[in-house]
């Protein structure tokens, strides 16, 4: 944040700045335009998902809640994001603690392994889980999706929690132990309250990563389709404002998520 303040004086003399600001606004409008179009097309009164919308109605929002097609995938996505998020957060917190508390040989290798799901492309993660479970005779189980989403979200959990543990430092916890608290007590009473914001941010982050995931999940959710996969198969064959209405509701969720994260830890911390 201090970088902004420092730059304020220089900006006035910087002739590149107005040009860059202009380009930024145009590019951002371009990439945000589809979202705005989608949002407003949800209020169409005809079967036409277009912009500007034909007429005004809320019937497509009612349709979202009335048709069953998306209900089960929606609940499945929520359950998946919650369960895999809790697992990833638990494993991630433990790993982040190990990496920040202890210095040991091989910690860099462990860090690399923890981050490895990030550098393997999603199509390949999806394919490998597909082949793996089909050879293990485990096809079609919800648990497979949970394991997959744990793998996908774990690196983010580790990274965000590790960053907040590093920021907090260890002196208070050491003081607590020095004053006679057990290490476990010191962690729960001293460290955990300090990294509360990081834990919240990481949890939300894991939830969104899991809820949003399409590519890897598509390989595994033939019988267990998640919401993004169900939407994909729907829009592959037809376009109508039902999807716009679902999209509009989810965009409200995304916006709330981003604003909340920004309040808690600052959005530039997690991107």
């Amino acid at each position, binding site marked *: 944040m201090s970088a*902004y303040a420092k730059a304020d004086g220089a900006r006035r003399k910087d002739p590149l700045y107005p040009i860059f600001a202009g380009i930024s606004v145009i590019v951002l409008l371009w990439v945000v335009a589809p979202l705005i179009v989608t949002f407003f097309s949800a209020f169409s009164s005809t079967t036409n998902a277009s912009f500007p919308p034909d007429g005004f109605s809320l019937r497509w929002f009612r349709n979202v809640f009335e048709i069953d097609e998306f209900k089960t995938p929606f609940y499945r996505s929520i359950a998946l994001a919650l369960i895999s998020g809790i697992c990833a957060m638990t494993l991630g917190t433990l790993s982040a603690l190990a990496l920040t508390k202890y210095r040991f040989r091989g910690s860099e290798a462990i860090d690399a392994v923890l981050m490895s799901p990030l550098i393997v492309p999603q199509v390949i993660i999806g394919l490998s889980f597909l*082949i793996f479970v089909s050879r293990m005779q485990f096809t079609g189980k919800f648990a497979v999706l949970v394991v997959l989403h744990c*793998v996908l979200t774990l690196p983010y959990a580790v990274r965000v929690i590790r960053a907040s543990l590093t920021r907090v430092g260890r002196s208070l916890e050491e003081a607590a132990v020095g004053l006679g608290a057990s290490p476990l007590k010191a962690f729960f009473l001293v460290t955990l309250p300090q990294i509360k914001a990081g834990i919240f941010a990481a949890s939300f982050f894991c939830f969104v990563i899991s809820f949003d995931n399409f590519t890897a999940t598509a390989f595994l959710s033939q019988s267990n389709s998640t919401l993004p996969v169900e939407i994909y198969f729907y829009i592959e064959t037809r376009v109508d404002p039902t999807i716009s209405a679902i999209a509009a509701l989810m965009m409200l969720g995304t916006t709330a998520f981003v604003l909340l994260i920004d309040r808690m830890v600052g959005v530039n911390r997690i991107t």
Partner: protein
Amino acid sequence: MTQKIRAFLLVSPAMILLVVFFAALTTVLSMSVRSPAGDFTFANYIRFVNDTHFLGYLWRSIRVACYVTLAALIAGYPIAYVMSRGSRRFASFITLALAIQFFSIYVIKMYGWMLMLGNNGVINRFLKYIGLTETPVRLMYNELGVAIGLFASALPLMVFPISSVLQNVSSRYEEAANGLGATPLQAFFRITLPLSAPGVVGGAVLAYVFCFTAYLTPSLLGGSIFKMIGNLIYDQAMVGFNYGLAGTAAVVTLLMSLLVVFGINSLGNRLLPGGTR
């Protein structure tokens, strides 16, 4: 010693999960070097590199990934610059707008582009309205549509690493350059841009690998006309049930992605002061 044991105990649950992940990755590799009868063979690889149809997927993916990454850099650098040098309110507004776009559900972003680019989409309606065209311009189900969709998704991947590096580059360096007689353009190209190179390299690698291995964007915006390597992997596995060939394509894709990730990073470490982190 006890420290080490404690640390390993703490990371062991995560390691068990990742062992499953690596076991799954290994099955892909072993599938790709196996004949349907189960013998060891490189037949899939030989078939892959000799078939212009398969190599076409690879070539299209590399081509699109290259120019989309370049476009994202040119369009994204100014955004990163404004995010780190703008007034506090404007910078945080830009950051939030980009973050909302970034965190929006991927499928929905692509649905939005379908509404934009379709024959009866926003852009074609607009072109017709201002009288530029009578018949709709084909913006989707071709390479252009895929490139447009990939650009929008790759942009934040490019911007965030650059802006986080730029935030730590003091604008005083530019002031010093200006004070010593450099024009603003000279100061930008000789001071700011080189100092932000680690961010540029990091962002470019992320954007490139994302585009190169994309599946959803080409399948929705490219249709059956413009398919990329991700579509080949998916179709071979899910439609053709040919795990051997899907595995071969996956191994080739993974190696080519890792080559870019580690190749560029080690090149960056050698050429850039301070490395790419």
